[in-house]
């Protein structure tokens, strides 16, 4: 992160400040809906940040990342359905299940490269979708309502919307920090080297497969936590969360925000979800605009928002 006062860093600071102050604004008469919207944005931003670890830094194009949102969510939902409401049980199970799924899927998928890898991860995520949709006991296709949010010891109360918002914000910041530390560590440089030139990495002595697998598991686990949060947020969980097009949404967030930094996906999530809200207010058929817009971003603004901010800085300091 270069230059303390760069446009990009200022943008991040402003955004963070705005997010911290949002509940205050809502309390002072702003729309309650904003709180709900932004809680959702925070959770999905966390999912996108976890995806960026393997996608942006690791070069592993997983098209099945939304599966972990579902796995984490269903861990909470299923346990709640069986009468286990303690977050101290639900959340570790969510993390463990996600990690296990990532381990198995990753071990198989990482044997392939490029477009095969894309297709495999997509297919495995769909498998998870179908399995869950077939579980009649837990709602099947219709989904499962969660009547009581994860219980922790008081004063923590997830049903308190403001408290829940700040918890999500804290977890998000924590994840971004964690990802940032990981990518700059020896492990992170190994992953980045493997993305840059896997053959060379193996030639100089790195057994890249195991590093990529561990990275895959970390990302999946992180997203599982996001899934647990999401289930609490919506008080509901359904297979639709895991449908492969939702994985596509996550990828869009990452690319739109910028894959080169830990913060990028955060911008992407905010941008995409706010854009969705705004556009759907204009027309019911807003995806007709989003679709081609995405294509244009891919063709002309590949660095995403992060990249654009970086360019602004460049122009400013050389202007």
């Amino acid at each position: 992160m270069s230059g303390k006062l760069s446009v990009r860093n200022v943008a991040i600071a402003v955004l963070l400040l705005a997010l911290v102050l949002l509940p205050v604004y809502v309390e002072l008469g702003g729309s309650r809906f904003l709180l709900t919207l932004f809680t959702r944005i925070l959770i999905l931003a966390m999912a996108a940040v976890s995806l960026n670890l393997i996608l942006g830094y690791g070069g592993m194009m997983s098209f099945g990342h939304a599966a972990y949102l579902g796995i984490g969510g269903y861990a909470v939902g299923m346990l709640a359905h069986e009468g286990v409401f303690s977050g101290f049980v639900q959340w570790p199970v969510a993390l463990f299940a996600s990690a296990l799924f990532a381990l198995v899927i990753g071990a198989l998928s990482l044997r392939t490269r490029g477009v095969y890898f894309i297709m495999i991860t997509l297919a495995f995520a769909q498998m998870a979708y179908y399995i869950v949709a077939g579980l009649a006991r837990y709602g099947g296709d219709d989904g499962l309502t969660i009547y009581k949010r994860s219980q922790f010891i008081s004063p923590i109360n997830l049903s308190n919307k403001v408290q829940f918002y700040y918890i999500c914000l804290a977890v998000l910041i924590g994840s971004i920090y964690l990802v940032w530390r990981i990518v700059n560590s020896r492990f992170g440089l190994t992953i980045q080297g493997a993305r840059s030139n896997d053959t060379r990495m193996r030639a100089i002595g790195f057994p890249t497969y195991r590093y990529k697998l561990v990275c895959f598991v970390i990302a999946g686990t992180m997203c599982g936590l996001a899934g647990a949060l999401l289930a609490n947020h919506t008080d509901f969980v359904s297979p639709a969360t895991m449908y492969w097009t939702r994985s596509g949404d996550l990828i869009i967030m990452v690319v739109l925000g910028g894959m080169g930094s830990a913060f990028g996906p955060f911008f992407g999530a905010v941008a995409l979800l706010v854009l969705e809200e705004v556009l759907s207010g204009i027309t019911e058929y807003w995806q007709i605009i989003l679709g081609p817009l995405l294509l244009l971003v891919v063709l002309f603004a590949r660095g995403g928002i992060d990249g654009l901010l970086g360019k602004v800085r460049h122009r400013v300091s050389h202007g």
Partner: protein
Amino acid sequence: MADLLRVDTLTKRFGGIVATDDLVFNIAEGELHAVIGPNGAGKTTLIAQLSGQLPPDSGRIHFAGSDITAIPMYARSALGLARSFQITSLFLDLSVLDNVALAVQAHAGHSFHFWRNARREAELRDPARVALARVGLGARADLPASALSHGEHRQLELAMALASSPRMLLLDEPMAGLGPEESARMVATLRELKKELTILLVEHDMEAVFALADRITVLVYGRVIATGKPEDIRNNAQVRDAYLGEQEAAHG
């Protein structure tokens, strides 16, 4: 001087083609030994077998007294045998220093460290800077590798091979694609390195070979047809007929 590398009746076939034919040769510690030969002589195949990229069909390779024939590629660099590549293969989107530091990191234990900033680890960055300085790229350390010229890429290749603190370097055509100025620089660098390392140099650039080599081995169709001091090789009639004649005609 004891032999650091001993190659014992090495053979490699690709279908009907014998790329390495019962090859026998030795490299003494501290010498710069050049391997020359016409295209198709099996030079790159030889390096591939020495570095562990290709397994030989028969024969043995001894390095520093041990038989390394069965040892896999990534383990050979741990033993002190490093190699540069004929076709540049770098981490173009990382910085020059990052490239070399990764080569250092590969031999600094496992990399399952998740917290410390690896770019601040002196254990990794210092040897990397030293290697870069030795090849003359010290000033370019913080640039992205993609910003370097082709000649500088060859230098970076060399730096990465050096980063593992090898005892012996296998250099596969380090001059490939270099202009006269860059070649001269590379020759100067190699002359410096010669003082501390044993080097096996595969090259087509005859000026460089004769300027640097302590001994030369001539390879034709996977076989050694002559080994000896540069003057002896230059005057060897067999070698002339098979190879040097064409070369001199080509270089005018």
